[in-house]
């Protein structure tokens, strides 16, 4: 006698046990998260403002040209965020400066991701001596406080946007390596991987088809959260005078300029910091949303 007899039963079973594809499920959960949606909206607003700034401002005319008759003007209609000690419009500089933060954030994470994830996957999948070597090297780099490592790198290679990207990128490698390794190790233990091996799949086939796709979730979350972290680190280095060289309007650098005028012109420190925080906040919101959406354990 078949266990499921009639059509209604069949439909009920299908309805109850229907498996949505993982990504559709993630997207469904993600859309429901108010925080993540707020983050996306903020990020779109900030990004488009920066893109518009790119078109309407001329680097030499509006961003770096000093006009002393305009210096240290408080926020007004003409200069919504006021002007700095060289008479440059802070609003324009912030919009223009977004490019540095975003490009450093994204490029640095691409660097950390590609090196760290590759190493982590190899370590987690092959194990043994290879894993030991990779993880010990990771330990070494992880035990150097990341800010200090970044400072050392910028000190060694000099100040430029590229060096900044590289420094912040290298600093993020150990984290990616560890997350990727842990994630791969949990996947390797799953029955379907054993099944694939048993079915005669080659090592690299199993790696590409089963391991990598199934261990991506925590790595993607790590990516978003790292972009936020990278933006903070990069602007911090610029704040210390080790990042993007002046007169480029990097947010951290602008904050550093404002310090000297903090007593009487505090708006100079308010707005660049606000720009960093809002951007980072938006990315963190998205990262949190992604993590919750991908974590099946936290669902009710």
């Amino acid at each position, binding site marked *: *006698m078949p*266990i499921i007899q009639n059509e209604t039963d069949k439909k009920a079973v299908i309805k109850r046990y229907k498996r949505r594809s993982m990504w559709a499920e993630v997207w469904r959960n993600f859309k429901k998260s108010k925080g993540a949606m707020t983050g996306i909206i903020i990020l779109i607003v900030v990004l488009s403002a920066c893109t518009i700034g790119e078109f309407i401002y001329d680097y030499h005319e509006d961003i770096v040209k000093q006009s002393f008759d305009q210096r240290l003007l408080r926020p007004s209609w003409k200069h919504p965020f006021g002007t700095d000690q060289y008479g440059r419009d802070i609003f324009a500089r912030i919009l223009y400066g977004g490019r540095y933060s975003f490009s450093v954030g994204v490029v640095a994470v691409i660097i950390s991701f590609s090196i760290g994830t590759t190493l982590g996957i190899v370590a987690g999948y092959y194990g043994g001596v290879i894993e030991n070597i990779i993880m010990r090297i990771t330990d070494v780099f992880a035990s150097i406080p990341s800010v200090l490592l970044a400072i050392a790198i910028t000190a060694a290679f000099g100040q430029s946007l590229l060096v900044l990207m590289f420094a912040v990128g290298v600093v993020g490698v150990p984290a990616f390596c560890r997350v990727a390794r842990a994630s791969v190790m949990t996947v390797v233990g799953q029955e379907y991987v054993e099944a694939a091996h048993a079915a005669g799949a080659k090592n690299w086939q199993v790696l590409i088809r089963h391991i990598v796709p199934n261990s991506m979730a925590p790595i993607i979350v790590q990516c978003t959260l790292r972009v936020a972290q990278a933006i903070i680190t990069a602007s911090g280095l610029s704040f210390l005078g080790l990042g993007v060289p002046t007169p480029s309007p990097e947010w951290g650098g602008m904050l550093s300029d404002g310090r000297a005028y903090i007593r009487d012109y505090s708006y100079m420190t308010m707005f660049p910091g606000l720009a960093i925080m809002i951007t980072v906040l938006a990315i963190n919101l998205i990262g949190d949303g992604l993590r919750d959406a991908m974590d099946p354990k936290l669902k009710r």
Partner: protein
Amino acid sequence: MNSKGMTDLVLKIENLVVHYETEDGIVEAVNGIDLQLERKRVLGLVGETGAGKTTTALAILNLVPDPPGVIKSGRIIVNGKDILNQDIKELERIRGKDVSMIFQDPMTSLNPVFTVGEQIAESIMLHEEVSKREAYERARELLELVGIPQDRADEYPHQFSGGMKQRALIAIALACRPKLLIADEPTTALDVTIQAQVLEVMAEIKEKYETSMIMITHDLGIVAETCDMVAVMYAGKIVEQGTLKDVFNNTKHPYTEGLFNCIPKINDRKAELIPIPGLMPDPTNLSRGCAFAPRCSYVMKECHERPVELKRINDTHMVACHAYDIQDFHIRRRVGKR
């Protein structure tokens, strides 16, 4: 048995209704059950996974997880105390003292960061005026009682085997000699050989402490071995209830029959096992009529329409099935051939 006074009733449940209000709808986990249990008796609560057995048990301790669980209505009297109308302080005094519970999975039910002795002693210190040392000494004795050497009290759960963990849990549950012990599938997670040992320990201690017990299980063999009374649950309702003899030898409900037909028989190995067709109904969407109707081989038109209620067969035996409105109805199971 009606002649016995109220004082001998350790547990009385009236019209208990428990819902889980989830995002996907309201799960009607327990739909109006009545139960009674006398002192020193053992009640077997039988049914498939999802029938509402554990929810009923948790309701007795007022520990239904909230959210999403809501006790919609009902009265639960344990040892003369109205569980659902106690303040939290009073409830904490009742739990572990008047009624305690052994949970399904011994592997995860002990706190990994405290020693087993500490976990038993904690229960004693909560309910009795004793010093820490006395409590610990009692904990060691309790371990001995459940068949674990005393000096292992200083060990942590991860140093115990599954069977030993379950015994430790029994020791915790019995630490303050509760009037009522609820055992929720206490042996499901254990090896068969260990199962027997654990059941034996429980039986001994029950005798010694004169504890009443609810044995939740889907294993009819365990029921036959340990219980005096049986209640069969299906989709949040009790469908058949009676003494062990009533339910085993004089099975009335088609669902109970189905359960028996699923057990392999050692002395008739050629006998076909007959699975109950279909699945448990979706608990978010129960029909008005008998919940078992879609799977029942005796189903009639009115089964889908009219709600069923428990009806008395005799002094102790009750069944919820419309078929018994018809004269001379009987199920096909040949009784007494087990």
